[in-house]
Structure formats: structure tokens, C-alpha cells
């Protein structure tokens, strides 16, 4: 069958003739213990806002770092959890990609060099891994998966890790000092929560399923809709987002791209068992689900909403959700899971995989 040139940069079954299939071997998580409810956060605003954040976003609480926790410790914790659930030893990791937006190592100290990935690989006992950091906003972890998928499919490596530690809730604390109304450009900062996540991607044994397709594109005419910058008069950072515009353009641009992805795989959206979108707010995810269902004449079997207890954990949201659903044993072998990235840039990415051994191996300590 002839396939049209896809707009997204795609790697999958029909897109090229790769030798191997990549799959998720294990998923790791590290959450701070401390919880901050939306009520507590909104009670800390300097100005009276009248914003019912929980009702608006569906986010009841988020985890926040305490003294001694930062991007690095969350990433290392997640990487260790990931390895504990894997049959791989740290010595098997050939490539390690750290994709945190926040790069805090120590209190209020954001490290540019050396890369965080170097310290992470040393901390987990994988000094042999080729390491690099990448930055692609909330699409960072899935961008890392896209790249490892390419290396594994070509047979260059057998096993790699993507890890991210997001100590990002401070943007919400900073926003709370300045926000005045629902129309504030810092409103989205109030949804943020801290989390570390990691995924080991490995070459699947012959005949085993894994990543069916991975694709990305950047609709850069929207690149200036969201900025994260260091705060000018205090520690940490601030984020300015034209949230309504981003949601609108994402809803406009994502469906035709998904159409092309599905065409490559010969699947319909209704064949997707679980769609895990980036977790911004429950309301935005449900609205997006309605748009997709309308466009495709039926949505995925399950649209995953996982932000009530964790908020928007930026680049880690897909893997926080995946970890939880694996722990709760919600997936079955053969389930088709679509991870959908929508991030500042505007980055739109898809990783489509078929569940297999992971549904059982996740709960097993090795």
C-alpha cells in the first residue's frame, strides 16, 4: 500500500524498513511526599482572585518538593525505581537522556553544565551510557523516547533510558504572588506539580510487539505562546502562557496529524484502547476528547485523566499516568496505548505502542 508523505516525522511499521522493534521495558516514578491542595495554593495568593482552581482544572492537589528534593533527586529516584522493575542492570543502559525542563540541583540552583544526565548516570551506576540532556518543554520525555526508538530500531543500541525530574511547582508559588484574575497569563502555572519519571526502552525480542509508531512535528508559528523564564525578583522561575490560544490551536492542529498517524498504522481512533494525553487539566482533556470523537466518528476506548492528584507534572505526565495504570493493572496484553504530547513549541508528538510483557513485569521487583 502506498502511503502519503506524512507531515509528522514518523518512524513506524510502514514509514521505513527498520530491523528491530523497540518497546518499554519498565517505567519508574518518584513522587515527593508533600502534598499541596489547590485550596491551599489559592489561599496563598497575594490578591483576591475568585478563582476556583479545583473546579476549573479538576486538579485537587499536587506533590511538591521539600528541603533536600530537587530535579536531580527526583530523576535519580525515578531511574532507580525503573531499574528495580527491569531485568536490565544499570550496566546495560547504553544511552541515557535527561529531558527535564527544570534542572535544579540544590536549592534554587539551576545547572547548565555539566549536563544533569551525567550526574544521573553516575548516581545509578551506569557510567558507560552515552548521556545527553534535551529540552523540549512538556514533550521532553516523549522526544527522548522518539530518539531512543530510532537508535534501537536501527540496531545501534539495545537499551536506553529517558528520565526527567521536574521540580516545577515553584512556578505556581511564584504565580500565586502575582495572579489577579482568571485571565492572568500565569494561570497555567497554578496547575504544576513535581514528579520524577523514567522509562527503559529496549529492543523487543523477535516477534514481540512494542512501539508501533513514533512521530513528532513542531507547528512553530505558535512557538511564542508559552515562555518559561527565571523570575526577575525572586528564586525559581515564572511561566507565561496564552493558555486558551494554545488549547484552541492544539485542537485545530492535532486531529489532522493524528489522522495521518492512524493512516500509517491502518488503525482507527476507536481501535486505541487508551489515549494518554499531556495532563494539563481534566476540563481541557475532556474537551479535547469531545473534539476527537466528533472528528473521528468515535473516540478512543479510554481517555486517561490523571491530573486530579498530581497536577501537570510537565515533561513527566505521560509516565506518571502510565506508572499508575500499570500499578493498578488496568492494561491488558494487546492493548493499544497512544501517548500524545502537546507542548510549548507547539510540539505535537505521538508514541503508539502495544502492551505486552510490561503489564506483568511492572509489579515484579528484579
Amino acid at each position, binding site marked *: 500500500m502506498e502511503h502519503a508523505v*506524512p507531515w509528522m516525522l514518523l518512524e513506524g511499521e510502514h514509514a521505513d524498513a527498520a530491523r528491530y522493534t523497540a518497546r518499554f521495558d519498565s517505567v519508574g516514578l518518584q513522587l515527593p511526599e508533600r502534598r499541596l491542595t489547590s485550596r491551599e495554593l489559592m489561599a496563598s495568593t497575594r490578591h483576591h482572585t475568585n478563582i476556583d482552581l479545583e473546579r476549573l482544572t479538576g486538579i485537587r492537589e499536587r506533590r511538591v518538593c521539600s528541603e533536600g528534593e530537587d530535579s536531580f533527586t527526583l530523576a535519580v529516584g525515578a531511574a532507580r525505581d525503573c531499574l528495580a522493575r527491569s531485568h536490565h542492570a544499570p550496566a546495560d543502559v547504553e544511552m541515557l537522556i535527561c529531558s527535564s525542563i527544570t534542572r535544579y540541583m540544590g536549592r534554587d*540552583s539551576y545547572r547548565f*553544565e555539566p549536563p544533569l544526565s551525567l550526574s544521573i548516570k*553516575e548516581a545509578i551506576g551506569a557510567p558507560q551510557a552515552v548521556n545527553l*540532556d*534535551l529540552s523540549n518543554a512538556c514533550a521532553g520525555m516523549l522526544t527522548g523516547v522518539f530518539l531512543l526508538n530510532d537508535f534501537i530500531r536501527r540496531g545501534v543500541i539495545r537499551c536506553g533510558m529517558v528520565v526527567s525530574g521536574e521540580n516545577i511547582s515553584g512556578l505556581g508559588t511564584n504565580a500565586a504572588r502575582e495572579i489577579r484574575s482568571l485571565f492572568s497569563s500565569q494561570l497555567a502555572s497554578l496547575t504544576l506539580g513535581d514528579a520524577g519519571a523514567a522509562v527503559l526502552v529496549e529492543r523487543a525480542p523477535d516477534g514481540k510487539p512494542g512501539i508501533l509508531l513514533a512521530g513528532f512535528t513542531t507547528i512553530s508559528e505558535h512557538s511564542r505562546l508559552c515562555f518559561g523564564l527565571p523570575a526577575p525578583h525572586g528564586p525559581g522561575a515564572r511561566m507565561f502562557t496564552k493558555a486558551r490560544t494554545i488549547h484552541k*490551536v492544539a485542537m485545530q492542529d492535532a486531529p489532522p496529524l493524528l489522522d495521518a498517524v492512524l493512516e500509517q498504522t491502518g488503525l482507527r481512533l476507536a481501535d486505541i484502547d487508551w489515549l494518554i494525553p499531556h495532563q494539563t487539566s481534566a476540563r481541557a482533556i475532556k474537551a479535547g476528547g469531545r473534539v476527537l470523537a466528533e472528528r473521528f466518528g468515535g473516540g478512543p476506548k479510554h481517555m486517561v485523566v490523571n491530573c486530579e492528584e498530581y497536577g501537570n507534572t510537565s515533561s513527566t505526565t505521560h509516565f506518571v499516568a502510565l506508572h499508575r495504570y500499570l500499578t493498578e493493572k488496568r492494561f491488558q496484553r494487546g492493548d493499544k496505548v497512544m501517548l500524545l504530547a502537546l507542548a510549548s513549541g507547539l510540539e505535537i508528538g505521538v508514541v503508539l505502542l502495544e502492551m505486552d510483557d510490561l503489564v506483568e513485569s511492572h509489579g515484579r521487583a528484579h
Partner: protein
Amino acid sequence: MGARIESVGTSHSHRGLLGRGALHLSDEAAKKCLQHAGRHADDIDLLVNAGLYKDRNMAEPALASIIQEDIGANPGHPPVRDRHGTFSFDVMNGACGAISAAHLVDGLVGKGPARLGLIVAGDADPGTSQDFPFPSVGGALLLAHTDADEGFARFAFRTFPEYADLFEVRLTWEPDQKHNVLEVRQDPSFGRRCVECATEATTAFLSAIGLGAQDVDLLIASQYPPGFPGELGGALGVPLDRMPIVPPELAGAHTAGPIVALESAMRSGQLARARNVLFVTAGAGVTTGIALYRNVPR
């Protein structure tokens, strides 16, 4: 089959000229690079930025996405049937970032779904440092798919974490000064350790592929720390005439270092005469990134 170097472009800040941040420098280098190749920005499938020090220390979005918009590489919707888009993201690996980016782009362009990849690397003082050590320089490198026997043949990355403390850059909140300060901490031994680590890694790299220093027709090295290229060439035994002379306004470039060296080698005709081109980068970590590029002498 692989990814061949199609063109390079560089830019730098002129003394006293304002408004030349990393974005401006990167945009300019990217546009020059495309112009030299006679390519349209829409041809680019993949755009990777390896620059680290950005305007206002921006953490989000990836600078690559803004560069993509500025140079007009498939910026808009709607996706059109039988037309491809552009995918952009940033890589951060200090002075080795451009070689890390080349490693990723080489696979996707040379053996994967992309046909043309642009690597951009630019750094400029974000204005929050008292001792920013790098000149304001941008570089861009265009890699195109080829079915011929040319392009990147091998990459190798090594880290020497025992020297991780010798060079560190952090943005830290300083309560006394009441703002975030970009602190650059460099030990006096950093330059020497970079040369030692790069020499050890390069010697092992060449030995693994059955080559010696005499087989290196052109050595393209990091431009920071100062003196690194010459000392590395001396330690490896690569004659000076096999190394480019980088103009003073581009000397000391950080992430764009190997790109400005490559441009100098193109201008001098050294690249056109070379078969084995060896890229050797070294920086914080200490990290070394090495690549062998098989060139077709023209």
C-alpha cells in the same frame, strides 16, 4: 548511505552592537547556512539547537522551535498532503552539544525518515553573569541524506566524572543581590584536563577503527577552553596545517566551536582536500564527543 555536510553558516556579535542575543545569532547563522546551500527552509525535516546560553535564560519552549518559526521552516498549519513538516528540539551537552546533535540527526537523516537536518548552536551572555567566558557566536550546520559513501562514519562519547567539578555553570538565586546570577566556575586545571581526556579518548577512538594520527586529514576541535585546538593537535601529533585557523571574532566559541572551525576549513580549502575529518569536542564533565566524517575530496 548517511548524512553529508551540505553547508555551514556562522554569525557573531559586533562590538558595541546591541540586540545580538543567542536567538538573533542562531537565526542569522541558520539563514546563512541555508543560503550557502541554496536550500529553502521548508526543506528542513529536523532542526536541533545545541546552544546553551539563551536570551533571558529561557527554559521553555525549545529555542529550536523559535528559530524554526523565524527562518520560516514549515511554521504553519494546516498539514498539507504530500508535504512534510519540521520537528524541532534542543540538545544540551555543553561544548559537545553540536556533536551530540549530529549523532541524533545522522541517524534520522542518514538512515531514518528525515532527509535534511539543521543543527544550530549559539550562545550569548544572557546578562545575568559577571564573568561570562564565551564570545557571542552562532553556528549552523546542514546535514543532508546521501546514498554515497560519505558522511559520518562513527561517533564516540566519553565522560570523565572525576573532573566534573572543574567547570560548572549554574543560575542561582542570590538573596544578597536579589536576583538570579549565572555563575561560571572554572578551575585553572580545566583546560589541561580537557586536552588530556580528549587525547585519551581520541587515541582509543582512532585505534578502534585502525587509524592513526597520520590518517587524520583535518582536525575540527572545540574552540574553548582557549588554546584547546592547538594543544590537542600537538598531543595527538596532527600537524598544524591539518587544522583550520579560526578568525579572532569567532575564537573561543562555545557550543558553535566545531561549526566555526569547520567553516574556516571550508574557506581555506582544507575540507575540500580532506578524506578523514575528525571532530573532537571536549567540555564540562569532562565530556568528550568525537566523530569521524568521511569526506569526498572535491
